[in-house]
C-alpha cells in the first residue's frame, strides 16, 4: 500500500503552516520528515493519517492494505498515548476490542505482539511502572497488533534519553528487517533520520515547503557499522537546514 500526499497546504487562522507538499511513501519504505521546529511536521502527519483535514490538496492511499490489516494507517505518538488505567496487555487489547475479534484470538494477538517487542514479562504492568523506553515499546506493540500497512511516527523517540533512544532505534531497525513495514517518520533529530530513512524530506521553516529530498541507498542493517558515511550525510542535511533553523529559532510563534 502506498501513501500519496498531493499538493497539501494548510493554514491555522491567518498563518500558513504548510505549502504545496507532495511526496509518496512506498511499500516497505521509511520516509523521514525533518525540519525546523514549528514547520508543520506534526500537522502534516496528522493530515496524512486523517486526523486533520488539509486546507488544500489531499492525502491519498493507493493499493489494498495487507490481508487482515485492522487499521492501515497507524500512529506512534511522541508521548506514547497509553491509557494510564490499563495494564500493558489491556492497552494493546483496547485497539482490538472494537473489531469483534473473539476473546481467544485477541489473547493470542496480544501475546504475539508483546513477544515480538520483548514485553511478555510486563503484560500485567501499568504504564506508570515502566520506563519511557518500555512505554514506547508498548505503543509499538499496540500499533503492530492492528497490522498496519503504514506507520505514522510522530517524533517517537524524542521523549526518551539518548541511551534509550539508541536501544529503541536498534529495535526499530530489527523490526523493520523482519517485517519491512512502511513508515512516515517525523523527527527533528537528524541522526535518527539518517539512521532510519530511505528518503529524507527536508522542510523549510514556516510555511513548510519541501526544501530537498535526500535519498539514502545504504541498507538499514548496514548503517550501524557505517556511521562515518552517515555522519557526512547528516552534515549535508544539516547544511540544508541550518539557515532555516536559525531563522525559525528567531520567529515568534503563535501556532501551537
Amino acid at each position, binding site marked *: 500500500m502506498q501513501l500519496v500526499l498531493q499538493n497539501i497546504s494548510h493554514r491555522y487562522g491567518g498563518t500558513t503552516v504548510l505549502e504545496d507538499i507532495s511526496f509518496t511513501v512506498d511499500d516497505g519504505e521509511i520516509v523521514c520528515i525533518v525540519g525546523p521546529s514549528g514547520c508543520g511536521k506534526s500537522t502534516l502527519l496528522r493530515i496524512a493519517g486523517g486526523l486533520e483535514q488539509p486546507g488544500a490538496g489531499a492525502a491519498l492511499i493507493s493499493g489494498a492494505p495487507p490481508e487482515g490489516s485492522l487499521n492501515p494507517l497507524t500512529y506512534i505518538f511522541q508521548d506514547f*498515548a497509553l*491509557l494510564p*488505567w490499563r495494564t500493558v496487555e489491556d492497552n494493546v487489547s483496547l485497539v482490538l476490542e472494537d473489531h469483534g475479534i473473539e476473546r481467544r484470538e485477541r489473547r493470542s494477538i496480544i501475546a504475539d505482539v508483546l513477544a515480538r517487542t520483548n514485553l511478555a514479562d510486563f503484560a500485567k504492568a501499568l504504564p*506508570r511502572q515502566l520506563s519511557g523506553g518500555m512505554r514506547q515499546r508498548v505503543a509499538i506493540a499496540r500499533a503492530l497488533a492492528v497490522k498496519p500497512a503504514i506507520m505514522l511516527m510522530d517524533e517517537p523517540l524524542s521523549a526518551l534519553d539518548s541511551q534509550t533512544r539508541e536501544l529503541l532505534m536498534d529495535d526499530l531497525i530489527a523490526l523493520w528487517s523482519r517485517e519491512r513495514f512502511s513508515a512516515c517518520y517525523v523527527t527533528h533529530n537528524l541522526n535518527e533520520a539518517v539512521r532510519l530513512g530511505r528518503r529524507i524530506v527536508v522542510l523549510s521553516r514556516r510555511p513548510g515547503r519541501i526544501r530537498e529530498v535526500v535519498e539514502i541507498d545504504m541498507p538499514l542493517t548496514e548503517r550501524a557499522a557505517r556511521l562515518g558515511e552517515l555522519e557526512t550525510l547528516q552534515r549535508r542535511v544539516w547544511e540544508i537546514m541550518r539557515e532555516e533553523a536559525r531563522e525559525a529559532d528567531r520567529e515568534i510563534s503563535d501556532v501551537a
Partner: protein
Amino acid sequence: MSHETTVPETARADAVGTRDEATLRPVPFRGGGFVHRPLGPVAPIVFLAILALWEIGSRSGFISQIALPAPSEAFGALVDLATSGMLWKHVGASLYRLFVGWTLGSLLGIAVGLAVGLFSLARAGLLPLVSALFPVPKIALLPLFIIWFGIGEGSKVATILFGTFFPTVIATYAGVDNVDRNLIRMGQSFGLSWLSIVRKIIVPGAMPAILSGFRISASIAIVLLVAAEMIGAEFGIGAYILMAGALFALDQLIAGVALLSVLGLCISWLIGKAEKRLLSWRA
C-alpha cells in the same frame, strides 16, 4: 565583601591538589523542611486531649453546665438513645434520605455533566442554567419542594438531590474537559467507535475529578439533610437535634451533632476507599 577575598585562595589550593585542612568544613545543609511526615497517632491524641480538657473543665465547674454539658453527659444521652431503641430509627431515617437523595443527584449529575462535556449543544444550553442555579441555597427552596413533593420523604430527598446534582455536574464536565486530548486523538487514530472512546477513555479519565466532586457533594448532602429534617420530620438526626434544641436538652444536642460528625467521617472514609480502588492506577 569578605568571602571574595578568601575564596580565590582556597580555589587555587584545590586546583593544585593541596587542601587547606584548617578551613575544611562541611557544606551547610539547607534542603530541609516543606515535606510532610505522616504522624498517625497525632490526630487521636489531639481529639482525646480536647475531650479530656472539656470533661475536666465541666467537672471543676470552670465550664458552666448550662453553657455546655460535659462530654460524659452527651455520651450518656447517646447511650439512652441507643437503649431506648430510637438511635437506629433516627440514624436509619437519615441514612435512607441521604442515600436516595445523594445517589439520584449524583447519577443525574454525572449524566448531565457528561452531556455538557461531550455535546456543544448541551454545553451551550445547560451550562448557563447550571451556573445560575448552583449558587441558590437549596434550603431556601425547601418550602417550594414541600409544595411540589409533599411534606414527607419527597421534599427531603429532593432537597438533597438538587443540592448534590449541581456540584456533580460541574465536577464531571470539568473532568471531561481535562481528559488528555492526545488520548482521545489516539482512540480516533485507531478507529475506535465514539461509544468506546467515551466509555474507555473519557469516563475513566474524568474519574478522579468525579470522585473529588463526590467528597464535596457528600458534605453538602449532610448539611441539607439536617436542614430538611428540621421541617416536618418525625425521625432523623436533624429532627432529633431540633427536638433537643427546643427542650434545651444540650446533652442530646451534642450527641446529635456527634452523630453527624461520625456520619461525615464514615462517608469520607468510604469515598477514600472508592478512590483507592478506582484510581489505583495513579501513583
